[in-house]
């Protein structure tokens, strides 16, 4: 992989994040520098409270760094206003949260389609992409089910399909497997990995499960808001 020219998608430089809690300052991130390149499949791991969620939220323009520089696709997030951040989340970022990602009143199909609708993509194109993706995540025939008629793992697959359908620069998944059993977790990772390989989608996911970590090609380990290990694994 090292011979191919690497395109940075996410760049963090000396990023700190301090939360004020009552009278004390909590330093969730203490000067974090990290570059994620296009097509990478990265796990962010570390003990509870090490800053995994915080870093994903900052990359995803949901939270704001206290200092340092954050850019996605070369755009400095601190220079964007509320509206532009919203458009950034819609067009450049895909989110998969731990659970309950879907809009309960929409069907599986509509959930997978919704971000594309927000982007203004034509109905035909939306239909093609959704049908392809639903079969790729193994949910064909379940288009009309509402989220409450799907298992937790199936809901996560729809969330992944939704994120990919919108064609973002990076998909951020905060402990996407924490709420499902290990077999289901394995299958979700298979799906993510396949999509990453076939489509070149950039994934950053957090986990503290060593088995999940093992599936990543790059592992970033955080402790106390700092990167302590950043290793590329053999491309298996």
């Amino acid at each position: 992989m090292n011979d191919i020219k690497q395109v940075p998608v996410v760049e963090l430089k000396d990023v700190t994040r301090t939360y004020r809690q009552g009278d004390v300052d909590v330093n969730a991130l203490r000067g974090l520098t990290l570059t994620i390149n296009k097509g990478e499949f990265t796990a962010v791991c570390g003990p509870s409270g090490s800053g995994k969620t915080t870093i994903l939220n900052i990359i995803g323009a949901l939270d704001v760094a206290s200092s340092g520089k954050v850019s996605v696709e070369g755009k400095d997030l601190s220079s964007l206003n509320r509206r532009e951040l919203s458009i950034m989340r819609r067009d450049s970022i895909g989110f998969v949260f731990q659970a309950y990602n879907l809009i309960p009143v929409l069907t599986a199909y509509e959930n997978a389609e919704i971000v594309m609708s927000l982007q203004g993509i034509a109905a035909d194109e939306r239909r093609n992409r959704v049908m392809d993706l639903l079969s790729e995540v193994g949910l064909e025939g379940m288009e009309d089910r509402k989220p409450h008629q799907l298992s937790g793992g199936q809901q996560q697959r729809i969330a992944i399909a939704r994120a990919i359908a919108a064609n973002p620069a990076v998909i951020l998944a905060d402990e996407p497997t924490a709420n499902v059993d290990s077999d289901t977790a394995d299958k979700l990772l298979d799906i993510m990995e396949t999509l990453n390989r076939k489509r070149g989608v950039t994934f950053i996911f957090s986990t503290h499960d060593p088995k999940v970590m093992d599936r990543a090609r790059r592992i970033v380990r955080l402790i106390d808001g700092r990167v302590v290990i950043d290793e590329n694994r053999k491309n298996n």
Partner: protein
Amino acid sequence: MEGSNLGVMAWRNIWRNLRRTVLTISSIAFGTFLAVISTGIQDRNFSEMIDLAARMGGGHVTIQHKEYQDYPTMSRTIENCKEITKSALKDKQVKHVVTRITGHTMISTAKGSYGAGFMAIDPLKEDDKTLSIIKNIVKGSMFATSMDRGIILGERLAKNLGAKMGSKVVYTMTDRKGEIVRGLAHVSGIIRTGAPGIDSGLSILPIDSVRKILGFSENEAIQVAVFIEDQRKSKQVAKRLSKKSGTGSATLTWNEVNPELAGFISMKIGGAIFMEMLIAVLVAAGIFNTLFVSVMERLREFGIMMAIGFSPGSLFRLVMLESLWLGLVGLVSGAIVTAGPYYYLASKGLDMTAMIGEGGSEVAGVAISPIFHVGIFPEHAALIAGAVFITTMISGLYPAWRAGRVVPVDTIKLV
């Protein structure tokens, strides 16, 4: 996406908590029902009362001597009744024009003397459309000609006088010089209205007989009464007619002639507005509560939506669309719930005799029918629909604003 998809989502969202939504919609529907029926009763009653007042008094528009309102004497007359009548009839709102002499008289028989009001009319020109009590003649009939020798008395008055059909009575009045003049008449009709003021204090005389006694010319009278199509146009018609009817006269609307009744009606309309505001507040509180609670329950969902690319504005619009749906479904249900009772009350009416009593009631000398009908003015119905709609949208504003202010990082943590 925006328009259509948000609308569909909003529609599905309002049905997520069926019980709450049904309650809210019922309260909107019930509020609409109350507002329409109460306004409908008022509109219809006032129209009827005003028309009745017009048909008992001087019409919707009265033309009389300009000082008569303050100094009602027989010296203050209109001397060109025929010309005024002719020109008034040219106005397309005007349906009937009649000439009358009204005033006070003392009626005597062997048994005694009683004061009463009198109205001298042309029997060939008047019927119950211009003088409602004509249909309350329970014995005898209307005069044959304007020179008739008859007199029609209220039932109670006749009883007090000990007068029966055909009895001879003497009526005394003051002429334009202040001299006492008298006439002789035979009782030719008895009126029973149920309104005590009328039954014990009114008499009707043929106009030309009275003209002769008072020394009026055949073109002279106390008032020209004008009846129009729609009582609410009285003011405009009065304005138009006043331009034509000369400087010696005053052209007045029914409410200027009958300020007591006008006062009663404006008081009742004030009451109706209070009632409608109360309904609006109830509707608003119901919708606000439903939307606010449902927004607070969905903060995490809104957080997720914002994270995947919904803008704050689109979440605001989503909740506004939810209130729009609630308002529309509420209004439609309101219309369905109201239609049946409304048509029943509009056509058959509700007989309130049991509550009011056989004696009837009167306001400012105008008898009120014991049967309640509804008949809402179209613009009032539109006003109610508009008010419900606007109330709904205003109630949605704060919850919608709250939805647009969701901070995803804070809410997504809430599982």
